[in-house]
């Protein structure tokens, strides 16, 4: 078996190609995934998310729980799990679900049994950030878990206005990823495939029903 030293030695022994130097991020040209000058973050996030077939709700903090409950009732979800990054809304959401006759389990308690996790109807998560210009939420293994945001057919993500960053540059230059744990993920709308004759199908392995709740600043 090849070991690290001999593997790298073989690569090191190759001649070295032309190095143009690593470009300086400050001169980086704008990509489609950057915010345009003067653009409103929440508005762009909403537009991009909707373009990717996400249902967007813009609410105040006090309406979060009711919105979550309404979506879950409409989706007829029974087996529901919440992830801990939903804080500070967890208690509120659980209480409101109870009124609707629903129970929101804690994902960390469901996840150890893959079968149970795989049988969930809906998950409700928070996120560590949202990227306006790409219409993405950013989840972490430490928060929503690796699969918490895509294991069930319905996914609701709650993002607070101050969590929204403009574009990918801001995301990667910021420090929100530092505490993400063993994985972070950008997730942008429902799971999709167009493999069969280019017909777009939503909800392949991940959720087909995706909601983004943007919480206005206080």
């Amino acid at each position, binding site marked *: 078996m090849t070991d690290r030293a001999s593997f790298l030695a073989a690569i090191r022994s190759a001649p070295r190609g032309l190095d*143009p*130097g690593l470009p300086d991020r400050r001169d980086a040209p704008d990509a*489609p995934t950057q915010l345009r000058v003067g653009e409103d973050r929440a508005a762009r996030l909403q537009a991009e998310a909707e373009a990717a077939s996400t249902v967007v709700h813009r609410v105040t903090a006090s309406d979060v729980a009711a919105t979550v409950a309404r979506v879950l009732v409409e989706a007829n979800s029974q087996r529901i799990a919440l992830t801990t990054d939903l804080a500070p809304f967890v208690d509120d959401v659980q209480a409101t679900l109870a009124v609707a006759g629903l129970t929101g389990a804690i994902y960390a308690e469901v996840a150890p049994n893959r079968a149970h996790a*795989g049988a969930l109807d809906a998950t409700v998560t928070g996120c560590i950030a949202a990227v306006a210009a790409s219409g993405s939420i950013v989840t972490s293994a430490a928060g929503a878990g690796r699969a918490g945001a895509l294991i069930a057919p319905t996914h609701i993500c709650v993002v607070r206005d101050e969590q929204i960053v403009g574009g*990918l*540059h801001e995301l990667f230059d910021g420090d929100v990823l530092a505490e993400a744990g*063993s*994985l972070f993920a950008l997730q942008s709308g429902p799971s999709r*495939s167009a493999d069969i004759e280019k017909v777009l199908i939503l909800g392949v392995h991940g959720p087909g029903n995706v909601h983004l709740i943007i919480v206005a600043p206080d």
Partner: protein
Amino acid sequence: MSATREDVGGTPLPPGWAKPAHQPDAFELTTTTFEERAAKTMARPFARGAIANATDHAAALTTARFVGTDHDALREEARKIRAHAIANLPDYLDHWIDQAERKGTVVHYASDESEARRIVAQICTDQQITRVVKSKSMASEEVSLNSALEAVGVDIYETDLGEFVVQAMGDRPGHVIAPILHRTKDEVHELFSAMAGHELPNEAEALTAFAREGLRHAFLTADAGISGGNFLIAETGDVLLVTNEGNGRLTTSLPPIHIALVGIEKVLPRRRDLAVLLPLLTGHGTGQQITTYVSVAAGPRRQGEPDGPEQMHVVLLDAGRSALLGGEFEEALHCIRCGACQNVCPVYRQVGGHAYGWVYGGPIGAVLTPLFRGQEEAGELAHATTLCGACDDVCPVKIPLHDLLLGLRRRSDADGHVPRHEQLAFALWAQVWSRPLLYRASTAVARGSLRTLARDGVVSAKTPLLRRWTAGRDLVVGRRAR
């Protein structure tokens, strides 16, 4: 691990799923020619139409995606990042390994294809892995991983919808991004109905749902998930994976072991480089603003995390890559496997991916295959292009594909891999046409012969020298009478 499997309630895998179909290894290079393979696809009108439509559609989406941005500047930035990463490959790999190991990833080293197969098979044997879910990986196609794992008793489930169809049909992917571009819904319907044991509705939605259900069971019971990797981030030891279906993330989240097989050239220096490379990868791949799921993993599940694998293995694959460093063809290593060059290639559009005889089709396939498989086996591919240059203009990292293809043709010439008759023909041609007098005589003879052969200014006869031209075309030598 067996305990986990028994925990699963619900429907077990349907009878037709008990053993996934055996998928043939991807090599036809030695037994057939490009022309023969191309003819197979061209004989299927649906495939031809579908390939043309799908690639045109993807190319148009890509163009539209970058309207209003300085696309060329972004591509230039990406080119520099890739060139810098490749020029400093050993350093960045070294750093990546340090970071990955620090986060608990077990790193393995595969110098060639057979070593990659041995390593993954060994992990499976050691960990008593018998069922694997797999997320689309071109690197695994390169090393024929599936057959190696089948040999040690592992059941493999390709989980990308297209790859799943390909696997069950015993076919091969026809495009790096859209594996069943060349297959009809009817074919998928027939296949899935046979697997289900009853007639399914012949609709994409129902067919997808059928695959989802069975594969969901596979996800929940698999002992390991195997993926490729779109990028390795040196700074942080990350493996990045993009998928639209979500199968990539489930593969790296649900089974207790995650194994990633990744080519060494996939290294990027920093996470922030993704701000340039990601929109190009997805914009050029599918025309999307961003791929639905971008997952960036470093190491197994940590304390306090609700889910995730207990082990993460990464197999770094060289298999011909380091041999390209610093040489004439180094830029082929800049490729990020977006498929954009396939989408604009007028030859690929006619013949599809299988004509290229190995894992990669289109312009990048015509470059990589001779480089990875050798000139003797695959040198022909560099000639299977018109050098139209459309691929150069679309490549998100500005790989000079036209120049690389021409370089490979030169290398065939230098290495003596050119058919004898072609060498003789060009030698004779040079003898005559380097002398103006002989040139004038030869062109006069040619003109005279064509005049003799022509009827109404058109040569359509199948003369021996013109046979390959006149089989499907006339030679119009005079102004056409009309």
